[in-house]
């Protein structure tokens, strides 16, 4: 019905079957490939990358037909395909790749290539020399869109030229972007010829847009999805590594201050018995049912299910074990108020979440209920503004969310080098010599394959690690499913396991989408 109101949009949502209208959170502010990195962006749509990631996170050829790595893992040599052209008709040359990498290295880019020593063309091939081996480097490469040297200039951000499967047809700042299939694309021609991305961040607005049939697919939330079936649409549930958990400071209060002078440490959570007891006292299946309406899976690490994940990080809920841990380390409820104490210190601490994030709030509250009931530890769940959060998280537990298709996230989350830095990594101040050694070995390994055992050992090596089985600096709770309403008949292909952020991960494989007849 509502489609009639806009004659223009009926064609895109109804009759023609090679167009799609997507309700999308966060239309970008420009399309300069140097301003963004990785798969959480428009890069795979508008640009080609030297290599790409398939749905199982394997590195596959894209613009490069192949690449080789020297034995010392310091020299990467890429052979580029010769049939690739930019959307303005100019061929993609090795010099464009050199230009792209040098532009990023020269700064004013948000992509970090500090590990790269030099980039140059040799015998028609692209050579990248590193300062030190970096096992994740190829993943960084997979996120870098190659820009045309001849066309890069002042207004490139709004008039991008790439060699990817789509080109930008129109961009209305803050409202919509329209992509159309790139006729000059070297890969298979996409079935979806035109994609309209409509800016839509509010979950109520998203529901209204599908109820009135104005978009073909849009994000939704667990609360909305549980309460609303929309005729003509199916609910798409994508599993993710988009995990939420509670950070637990591991050092005692007052031991040090962060770079910006905030006091660090917490006298309750610095006791490993408390941390592990909380971790084992929580029934995560119940958590997913109660707080996420069933749209989530238990989380045991920052990277469940990824190739570098250690499956041994999974723990069973064991309330008896949790109680025993607390009893034997002197946390007992002597005054009978339901909350344990030790040396006059109550087993009670606040847990902060971003005020307004209802999923994180619900999850933390549900966890807090279980922990209080099961083991007599009190978690007082409180909302906080982002600024306060930055100041408080080095001293108090906070609810954070991670989930990345690059294992380097683990390095920054748990390496001792992150302690006290003013960022979102390692607010627990966790640092352990054995874990550092594994993480250094993983990052400095010669390849992704060689690195995997080290990434896994950093989580759990049989005696220690960053997982809840080990030192337990982080109570992982749940991986939040990404939910979408999709019009019946819209096939969104095989999706890669979703990282944090539900928008770009959905459309990364837009070229594989199609309408069923």
């Amino acid at each position, binding site marked *: *019905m*509502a489609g*009639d*109101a*806009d004659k*223009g*949009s009926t064609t*895109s949502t109804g009759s023609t079957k090679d*167009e799609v*209208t997507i309700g999308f959170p966060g239309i970008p*502010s*420009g399309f*300069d490939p140097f*301003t963004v*990195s990785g798969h959480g962006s428009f890069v795979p749509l508008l640009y080609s990358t030297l290599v790409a990631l398939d749905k199982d996170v394997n590195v596959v050829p894209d613009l490069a037909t192949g690449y080789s790595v020297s034995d010392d893992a310091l020299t990467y040599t890429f052979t580029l395909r010769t049939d690739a052209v930019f959307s303005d008709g100019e061929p993609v040359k090795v010099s464009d790749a050199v230009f792209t990498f040098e532009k990023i290295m020269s*700064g*004013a880019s*948000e992509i*970090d*290539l*500090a*590990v790269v020593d030099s980039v140059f063309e040799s015998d028609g091939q692209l050579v990248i020399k590193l300062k030190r081996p970096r096992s994740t480097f190829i993943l960084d490469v997979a996120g870098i869109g190659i820009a045309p040297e001849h066309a890069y200039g002042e*207004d490139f*951000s709004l008039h991008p030229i790439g060699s990817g499967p789509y080109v930008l*047809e*129109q961009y*209305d*700042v*803050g*409202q*919509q972007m*329209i992509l159309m299939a790139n006729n000059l694309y070297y890969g298979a021609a996409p079935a979806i010829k*035109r994609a*309209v991305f*409509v*800016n*839509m*961040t*509010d979950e*109520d*607005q998203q*529901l*209204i*847009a599908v*109820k*009135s049939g*104005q*978009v073909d697919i849009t994000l939704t939330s667990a609360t909305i999805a549980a309460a609303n079936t929309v005729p003509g649409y199916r609910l798409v549930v994508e599993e993710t590594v988009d995990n939420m958990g509670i950070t637990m400071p591991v050092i005692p209060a007052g031991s040090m201050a962060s770079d910006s002078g905030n006091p660090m440490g917490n006298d309750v959570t610095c006791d490993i018995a408390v941390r592990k007891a909380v971790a084992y006292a929580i029934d995560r299946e119940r958590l997913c049912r109660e707080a996420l309406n069933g749209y989530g899976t238990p989380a045991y690490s920052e990277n469940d299910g990824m190739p570098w994940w250690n499956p041994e990080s999974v723990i069973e809920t064991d309330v008896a074990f949790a109680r025993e841990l607390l009893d034997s380390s002197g946390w007992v409820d002597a005054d009978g108020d339901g909350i344990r104490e030790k040396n006059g210190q109550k087993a009670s601490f606040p847990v902060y979440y971003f005020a307004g994030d209802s999923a994180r709030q619900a999850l933390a509250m549900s966890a807090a209920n279980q922990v209080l009931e099961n083991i007599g530890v009190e978690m007082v769940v409180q909302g906080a503004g*982002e*600024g306060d959060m*930055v100041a408080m998280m080095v001293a108090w537990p906070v609810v954070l969310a991670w989930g*990345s298709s*690059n294992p*380097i*996230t683990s390095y*920054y989350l748990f390496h001792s080098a992150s302690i006290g*830095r*003013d*960022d*979102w990594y390692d607010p627990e101040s966790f640092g352990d010599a054995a874990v550092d050694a594994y993480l250094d070995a993983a990052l400095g390994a010669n390849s992704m394959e060689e690195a995997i055992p080290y990434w896994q050992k950093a989580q759990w090596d049989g005696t220690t690690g960053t997982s809840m089985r080990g030192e337990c600096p982080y109570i992982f709770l749940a991986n939040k499913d990404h939910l979408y309403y999709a019009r019946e008949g819209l096939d969104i292909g095989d999706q890669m396991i979703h990282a944090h952020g539900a928008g770009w991960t959905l459309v990364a494989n837009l070229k594989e989408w199609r309408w069923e007849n």
Partner: protein
Amino acid sequence: MGKLKSWGIRGGVSLGKLKSWGIYIGRGVALLFAVSALSFALASASPINPETRYRLSHPGVSQENVTKMREYWGIDEPPVGRYLGWLGGLVRGEWGMSTTYRRPVLDVIGERFSASFALMATAWVLSGLTGFAMGCVMAAARDRWPDRILRRICLFLCSVPTFWIGLVLLAVFSANLGWFPFGLAVPPGVRAESVTLAQRIHHLALPALTLSCLSFANLALHVREKLVDVYQSDYVLYARARGECGAQILFGHGIRNALVPAIIMQFGSVSELFGGSVFAESVFSYPGLGSALAKAGMDASDIPLFLGIVMISAVFIFAGNLTANILTQVIDPRTKGVG
């Protein structure tokens, strides 16, 4: 009306008039200076700066790259130097580069301004007319049922937040009835050159209605109060005694007396309009200054754009209040030299 005009002409060139213009301009400059200093200080003191943002969204960033980005954002300079540099640029018309759009701030503002201006102007006129008319109706029917119902509606609208009104309008007129689109300023998927004026108005309707709800109830209640005072005055009693009917009293005495406070209120509400547009534009994904301000301030820490929009808003709010002042004096010469 002829009388009004002659006042304007007579006062236009006098020395006193020039002096009061000087005072207005002086006040305006002082206000803008204060707003610039205060908002710059607040933005600088915010614990969330571009660097924390950058670290948050870029896992594995090296110190080398942070240093490069700090140079790009220009946050290593001392704050006073940065402020003076920015202020100098402001005067020269170089408002800096938006860090999210990577384009000059004035370009971004210019684009957003036209959309916002259409929205705010429509809402402003709409709320002015409906508010004034509703106030007259309430006063004419004071203490009878139309007055009671309308007054409750007005009080209700005064107390609910703008974004909630927006969501209700969306649920009713977009989701259920399908009369209006769910948002944006143009229909999705249509090429810019083929968007018609009718389509633009169609997309403008709900956001403008939402925004007008912000101030028309307030205006209506004030007009009603003023008119009720008039109705209880001796000269209205005298007019009735002379045999004037309801309409004659309303148009001859009521509206004349209620118009001045209504105009002052309506121009004074420009500040609320700017505030409300942040919410209205966000609910409807309407691409104006308000949504740009929310994005620049909350998500992106785009300080140059944020400050630019603050300054533009300050200019408009000042202009609104100034117009209210001048109009008051033009319409009612008794207030000359006051304020």
